[in-house]
C-alpha cells in the first residue's frame, strides 16, 4: 500500500515538472585544461584580484590567464593535491582547502601548507571564507567548521550546538555574517571576542530538507539554498521566512550540486539531471538542459561566472564555458530544423515573426520554456513564398513585403489581410523593406520609395491609404532603394544601390557622397540609435555613422576593421533601447556601445561563426533582446544584462632585475650591475584571449609605443637615468581608451661614473704618480752618488797606484833584482803589469768575485815582498769553497793591505803580519800595529771609501776594530745572485 503511494507520488511529481526538450539553449564550449592528464575533475573555481582564474581539481591547483592553464607546484613533498575549496581573501592571498583536510596558501607560485599549532582538520574542506572581522572560516565535511583568527584555530561542532558536523557550504550575507549549510539545515555562526554563537534553522523552521548543499546570497536579503532532495528555495535572513518558488514546489531533479545567481535567473547544477535555468524575474521560465543539443552533461558540480560574464561549468571531467544568457541559439522548432529565414520581426507581444519557404510564421515562447510555431496563411499570397520584409505598424497590424506580389497588411489575431498592390496604386510589386512611424509607412521598392499615409481610420485593417512616390524623377538619385527610414526629426533617409545615401527633409533632397566622406556606393540598411545618431550599413565598406561632432555639425564617421568590426561586409543592423547598435556580419556579431564609444563582439569563441543571414533578419524585441535569423538558426542577444568587463584587465605579473624580483609597490633604484630588466604583465580577457594586444613604452628610452603580443618586455642595458615603464592593453589595435599601468624606477650610474669615485680616482692616481716621480728622483740621485763614489774610489786607487812612492819603490826593487836575477826581474815586471791590468779591468765594476780580488792581493803582495822580504807576511786562509758566490767591491782588500804597509813599520825582526780569513760569516782582514816614526799622513779616504761603496750597494757595513795591537776590518760579503 505504502509502496503504491510512493509510486503515485513520483508519478505526480513527474507530472508536475515535465521534461521538455528545449530547442533554445545557451552556447557551451568544452575547454581543455591539460592534454597530458586524463580525468581531470574541476571541484571549485575562483578569480583573484588580478582577474586570474584558479581551478581546484582532483589533480592539483591550476591557474588560467586566458592563454594557458598552469599547474602549480606543491612545496611539501608528498602533500596531497586533491583540492576541494578555494578562496581569495581581502589581501589577495589564495587559500586552498584539500580533500585530506589540509589547508594551504599560494605563495611564490606554489602551493604551501598553512601550518597552525592546532593541526589540520582531517576531513574534507568544503569551503573557505572571510568575515568582516578578518577571521578565516573553514567548513569541513565531518568536523563542523573552523575559525582562524590569525593566532589560533577554533572549532564549531555539535558540542557548540552546531546542527551538524557535516557541512557542505559556507557563505556570508550582506552584513558579513557567516552561514553554513549542513546535514542539519542552515546555521548562522558568529565569533566575536572568542565567543561563539550559533543559530540553527531546520525543517522545524520550514526548510523543505535538512540537507543544505548550497547557499548563494541574493543582495535583496535572502539566501538561495539548494537541497539534497527537495530542490531550491529562498531563506530570508531577517524574517527567517522560507519561500519555495512555484516551479520548485514539487522537485524531482535529485540533488543540487551547484548554483549560480545572475541578474534575472539562477542556474542550478544537479547531480543527475543536468542544468536548470530558472528565470525569476520576468516570465518565470524554467528550463532544464539535459541531453539537449549542446548540453549532454547530467552532472554539474561547479558553476562559476567570471567578471566578463562567462559562465564556467565543471561536469565530471569536462570543463565548459558559456556566454550564458547573453547569447542563446534556437536551432529547431517543433523538432524541425530552422532553415532559410528571409525576414524577422518581433511584435509587441514578443512573438517572433519570420518568413521562410512556408510563408509567414510566428513563434510563441511559453513560460515553461517551450516554443510553439504558427504558420499564417495569407489570402491572395501565392507560392513560392518570397516574403522579404515584416513590419508592425503603430496600430498593431503586421505588414509584409513580398518579391513580385506587393505588400500585405495583416491582423495578427485573426489572419485577415489587405493586399496592397497595383490595384491599390502600388507601382512596383517588389517591396524590399517596410518601415514607418505612427500613420506613415515607407516602402523601399525597385522603382523608388513609396510613402503611404494611413487615414484617420488606421485602426481598421482596411483603412484609407494615401500613396506618394519618390524616385529618380522627383529627386532621388536612383530607383533601386533597399531601405527607407524616417528618423525622430522626421527626416527620411534612403539607402540606395550604387548611389549612396540620400535624405529628404523640409528643404528637399540631400545626397551624400565622397565629399561628405561617404565612400561606399551601396547601402542596404539604416537604423537610428537611442542618441538619435544614424547608422548606415554598406555591403563592402563597413559602417557609417551620422552624428553631431564637437562643433555641433552633423557629419559622417566611418568604422571598419581597425575599430573592431569583425568584417566590412555587414548583413544586419539594428539599434536596441539600451544604447547599443548591433551589427551582424558573417564573421561575428559586433555591438557598438554608445556610452563607451567602442565595439565589443561575439565571435567563434561563443559559437558565432560563419553566420549566413539575410538583410532584414535583425530585429529588436520589446524586451530589448535582439533576434537574428540565419539560414539554419535564430540567435538572440540579450543586452539588458548588467555590464560586465568588456576589455582585457591589465596587471603586472612581476618584474625582475637580473633575475631578482622587484617590488612593484615601491620605487626602485637599480644598480648598474643588475641592469637587465624584464617586465611581465598580463591582460586577462577570457572572452577572446587571442585578440589581446599590448603596447609598451619605456619613458626615457622609447619615443614611440611598441606594439606586441608578448607578455614580457626586456631591457638589457639601460643607460643610467630615470625611467617609467608604461604598458597598455587593448582588445583591438586601437589603444585610445585602453587601460594603462606603469612603473617608475631609476637606473644608477656604474660606480666608475659617479662624481665622488672619479675625484677619488684622480686623487689616488695623482698621489701614485707623485710618489713614483719622487722615488725615481731618489733612485737617480742614489745612482749618481754611487757613480761618484766609484769614481772617487777609482781615482783614489789610481792615484795611489800611480803614487810616485809606489812606482819609485817598485822600480828601485826592480833595479836591485835585475842585477841579481834576470828571470826574477822579468817575473817582477810581469806581476807589476798584471797588477795594473787587473786594476784597469775591474775598476768600472760595482762588485767582483772574491777570487779575482785575491788575485790582485797576491800580485800586490808579491810586488811588496820583493821589497820587504821577510818583513811582510801575508797569511791567506780562505778555502776555495768559501770564495764561491762571494762578491766584493773591487780593490777593497787591496786598499786595506796597502794602508797596512803604508802606516806600519816593517822590519825583519818585527814583520808586518796580515791575516785574511773567515770568521763565521765575516771575511776578516787583520794586521798588527807597529807605528812608524815618521808617520805618513793618513787621509782616511781608504776606509771611508769602502764603507760608502758597501752602503750604496746595499751590503752590510764593514766593521772596523782598532785594538792596541791590531787593526781589524770585517766584511760581510754579498752572495752572487
Amino acid at each position: 500500500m505504502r509502496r503504491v503511494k510512493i509510486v503515485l507520488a513520483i508519478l505526480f511529481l513527474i507530472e508536475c515538472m515535465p521534461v521538455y526538450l528545449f530547442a533554445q539553449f545557451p552556447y557551451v564550449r568544452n575547454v581543455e585544461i591539460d592534454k597530458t592528464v586524463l580525468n581531470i575533475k574541476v571541484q571549485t573555481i575562483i578569480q583573484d584580484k588580478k582577474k586570474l582564474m584558479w581551478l581546484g581539481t582532483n589533480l592539483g591547483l591550476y591557474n588560467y590567464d586566458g592563454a594557458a592553464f598552469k599547474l602549480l607546484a606543491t612545496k611539501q613533498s608528498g602533500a596531497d593535491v586533491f583540492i576541494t575549496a578555494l578562496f581569495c581573501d581581502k589581501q589577495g592571498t589564495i587559500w586552498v582547502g584539500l580533500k585530506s583536510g589540509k589547508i594551504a596558501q599560494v605563495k611564490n607560485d606554489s602551493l604551501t601548507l598553512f601550518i597552525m599549532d592546532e593541526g589540520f582538520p582531517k576531513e574534507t574542506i568544503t569551503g573557505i571564507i572571510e568575515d568582516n572581522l578578518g577571521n578565516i572560516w573553514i567548513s569541513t565535511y565531518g568536523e563542523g567548521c573552523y575559525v582562524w583568527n590569525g593566532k589560533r584555530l577554533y572549532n564549531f561542532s555539535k558540542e557548540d550546538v552546531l546542527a551538524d558536523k557535516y557541512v557542505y557550504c559556507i557563505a556570508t550575507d550582506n552584513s558579513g555574517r557567516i552561514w553554513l549549510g549542513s546535514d542539519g539545515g542552515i546555521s548562522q555562526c558568529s565569533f566575536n571576542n572568542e565567543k561563539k554563537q550559533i543559530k540553527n534553522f531546520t525543517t522545524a523552521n520550514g526548510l523543505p530538507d535538512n540537507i543544505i548543499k548550497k547557499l548563494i546570497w541574493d543582495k535583496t536579503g535572502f539566501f538561495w539554498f539548494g537541497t539534497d532532495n527537495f530542490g531550491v528555495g529562498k531563506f530570508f535572513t531577517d524574517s527567517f521566512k522560507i519561500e519555495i518558488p512555484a516551479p520548485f514546489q514539487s522537485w524531482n531533479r535529485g540533488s543540487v550540486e551547484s548554483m549560480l545567481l545572475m541578474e534575472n535567473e539562477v542556474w542550478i547544477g544537479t547531480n543527475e539531471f543536468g542544468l536548470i535555468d530558472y528565470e525569476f524575474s520576468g516570465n518565470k521560465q524554467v528550463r532544464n538542459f539535459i541531453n539537449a543539443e549542446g548540453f549532454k552533461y547530467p552532472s554539474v558540480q561547479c558553476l562559476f561566472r567570471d567578471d566578463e560574464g562567462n559562465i564556467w561549468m565543471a561536469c565530471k571531467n569536462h570543463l565548459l564555458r558559456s556566454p550564458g544568457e547573453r547569447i542563446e541559439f534556437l536551432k529547431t522548432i517543433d523538432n524541425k530544423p530552422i532553415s532559410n529565414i528571409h525576414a524577422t520581426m518581433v511584435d509587441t507581444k514578443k512573438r517572433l515573426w519570420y518568413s521562410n519557404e512556408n510563408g509567414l510564421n510566428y513563434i510563441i515562447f511559453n513560460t515553461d520554456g517551450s516554443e510553439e510555431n504558427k504558420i499564417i496563411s495569407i489570402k491572395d499570397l501565392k507560392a513560392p513564398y518570397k516574403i522579404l520584409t515584416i513590419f508592425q505598424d503603430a496600430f498593431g497590424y503586421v505588414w509584409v513585403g513580398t518579391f513580385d506580389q506587393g505588400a500585405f497588411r495583416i491582423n495578427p489575431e485573426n489572419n485577415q489581410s489587405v493586399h496592397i498592390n497595383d490595384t491599390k496604386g502600388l507601382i512596383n510589386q517588389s517591396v524590399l523593406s517596410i518601415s514607418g512611424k505612427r500613420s506613415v509607412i515607407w516602402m523601399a521598392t525597385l522603382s523608388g520609395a513609396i510613402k503611404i499615409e494611413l487615414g484617420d481610420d488606421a485602426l481598421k485593417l482596411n483603412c484609407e491609404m494615401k500613396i506618394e512616390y519618390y524616385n529618380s524623377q522627383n529627386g532621388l538619385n536612383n530607383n533601386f532603394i533597399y531601405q527607407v527610414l524616417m528618423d525622430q526629426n522626421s527626416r527620411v533617409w534612403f539607402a540606395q544601390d550604387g548611389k549612396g545615401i540620400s535624405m529628404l527633409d523640409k528643404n528637399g533632397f540631400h545626397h551624400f557622397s565622397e565629399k561628405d566622406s561617404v565612400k561606399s556606393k551601396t547601402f542596404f540598411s539604416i537604423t537610428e540609435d537611442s542618441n538619435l545618431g544614424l547608422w548606415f550599413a554598406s555591403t563592402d565598406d563597413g559602417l557609417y555613422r551620422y552624428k553631431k561632432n564637437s562643433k555641433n555639425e552633423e557629419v559622417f564617421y566611418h568604422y571598419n576593421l581597425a575599430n573592431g568590426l569583425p568584417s566590412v561586409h555587414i548583413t544586419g543592423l539594428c539599434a536596441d533601447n539600451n544604447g547599443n547598435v548591433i551589427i551582424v556580419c558573417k564573421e561575428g556579431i559586433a555591438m557598438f556601445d554608445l556610452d563607451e564609444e567602442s565595439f565589443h563582439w561575439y565571435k567563434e569563441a561563443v559559437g558565432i561563426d560563419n553566420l549566413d543571414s539575410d538583410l532584414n533578419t535583425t530585429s529588436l524585441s520589446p524586451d530589448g533582446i535582439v533576434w537574428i535569423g540565419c539560414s539554419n538558426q535564430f540567435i538572440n542577444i540579450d543586452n539588458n544584462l548588467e555590464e560586465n568587463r568588456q576589455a582585457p584587465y591589465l596587471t603586472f605579473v612581476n618584474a625582475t632585475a637580473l633575475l631578482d624580483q622587484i617590488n612593484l609597490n615601491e620605487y626602485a633604484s637599480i644598480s648598474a650591475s643588475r641592469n637587465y630588466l624584464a617586465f611581465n604583465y598580463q591582460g586577462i580577457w577570457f572572452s577572446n584571449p587571442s585578440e589581446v594586444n599590448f603596447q609598451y613604452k619605456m619613458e626615457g628610452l622609447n619615443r614611440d609605443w611598441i606594439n606586441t603580443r608578448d607578455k614580457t618586455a626586456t631591457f638589457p642595458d639601460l643607460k643610467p637615468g630615470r625611467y617609467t615603464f608604461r604598458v597598455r592593453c587593448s582588445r583591438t589595435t586601437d589603444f585610445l581608451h585602453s587601460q594603462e599601468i606603469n612603473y617608475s624606477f631609476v637606473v644608477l650610474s656604474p660606480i666608475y661614473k659617479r662624481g665622488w669615485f672619479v675625484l677619488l680616482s684622480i686623487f689616488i692616481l695623482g698621489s701614485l704618480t707623485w710618489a713614483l716621480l719622487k722615488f725615481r728622483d731618489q733612485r737617480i740621485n742614489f745612482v749618481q752618488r754611487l757613480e761618484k763614489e766609484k769614481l772617487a774610489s777609482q781615482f783614489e786607487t789610481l792615484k795611489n797606484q800611480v803614487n810616485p812612492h809606489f812606482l819609485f819603490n817598485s822600480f828601485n826593487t826592480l833595479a836591485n833584482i835585475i842585477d841579481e836575477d834576470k828571470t826574477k826581474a822579468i817575473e817582477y815586471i810581469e806581476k807589476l803589469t798584471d797588477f795594473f791590468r787587473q786594476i784597469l779591468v775591474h775598476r768600472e765594476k760595482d762588485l767582483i768575485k772574491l777570487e779575482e780580488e785575491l788575485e790582485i792581493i797576491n800580485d800586490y803582495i808579491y810586488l811588496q815582498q820583493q821589497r820587504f822580504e821577510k818583513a811582510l807576511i801575508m797569511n791567506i786562509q780562505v778555502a776555495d769553497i768559501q770564495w764561491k758566490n762571494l762578491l766584493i767591491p773591487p780593490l777593497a782588500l787591496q786598499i786595506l793591505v796597502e794602508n797596512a804597509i803604508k802606516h806600519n813599520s816593517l822590519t825583519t825582526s818585527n814583520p808586518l803580519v796580515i791575516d785574511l780569513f773567515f770568521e763565521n760569516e765575516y771575511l776578516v782582514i787583520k794586521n798588527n800595529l807597529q807605528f812608524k816614526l815618521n808617520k805618513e799622513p793618513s787621509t782616511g779616504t781608504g776606509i771611508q771609501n769602502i764603507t760608502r761603496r758597501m752602503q750604496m750597494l746595499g751590503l752590510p757595513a764593514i766593521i772596523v776594530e782598532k785594538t792596541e795591537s791590531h787593526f781589524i776590518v770585517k766584511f760581510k760579503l754579498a752572495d752572487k745572485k
Partner: protein
Amino acid sequence: MSFAVASIVYAFQKVNTIYKSTEGKIIFLSEAAFETITATSEKVSGALDTSTQMFAFYVANNSFEGFNNVLQREHFNESYLETEKNPRSVFTGKIIEKINLKKPGIYQVRAKGILNIHGVEQERILKCEMIVEKETIKVTCKFSVFLTDHNISIPKIVFEKISPEIKVSVFTIMKGKI
C-alpha cells in the same frame, strides 16, 4: 522488564568505556632571556570516555616542584597562579577525530576543549598522541600557553626572567576496565 535490562547493560557498557589516569606528569618550561625555569607535577588526574570521546584532566596547581629556588615556587603559587583561589588547572572537552580507541595503535588526534588556568577559560584545540595498548592508553600532549590569555600578569622587574609563552608537556597513562 526488557527495557530495564537493556538500560542496565547499557550503563555497564558505558562504565566500561571509561579510562582513568593512573600516573602522569606535567612539565612546564619558561625560556626567557635571562632565565630558564622548569617545574614538574605528577599529580595529574583525568578520565576519558572512549565511547563519547569526552575527557577531563586536571592538575593541582600547588603540586609543581623543581623551580630554580624556593622563592620562585612561592611566587608561582601566590602571585601568578594564585593557587588558593585557583587550586586546579583543568582541560575538558572532546576528541575531534572519530577513532576506535579499543584498537591498539598510535593515533594522532586533536582534543578540542576548554583550558582553565588561573580561573580563565580558553577554548583550545591541542594536538595529542595516543598510544592505545591492551588495557592502557598513553597520552602525550605538548602545547603552549600565553600568560596574557589567562590574565597572568608579570611584574616588570621579572619580565626578562619569565617568558610570556609557557611550553607545557603532559604525559599520562590511563587504564580502563577498573
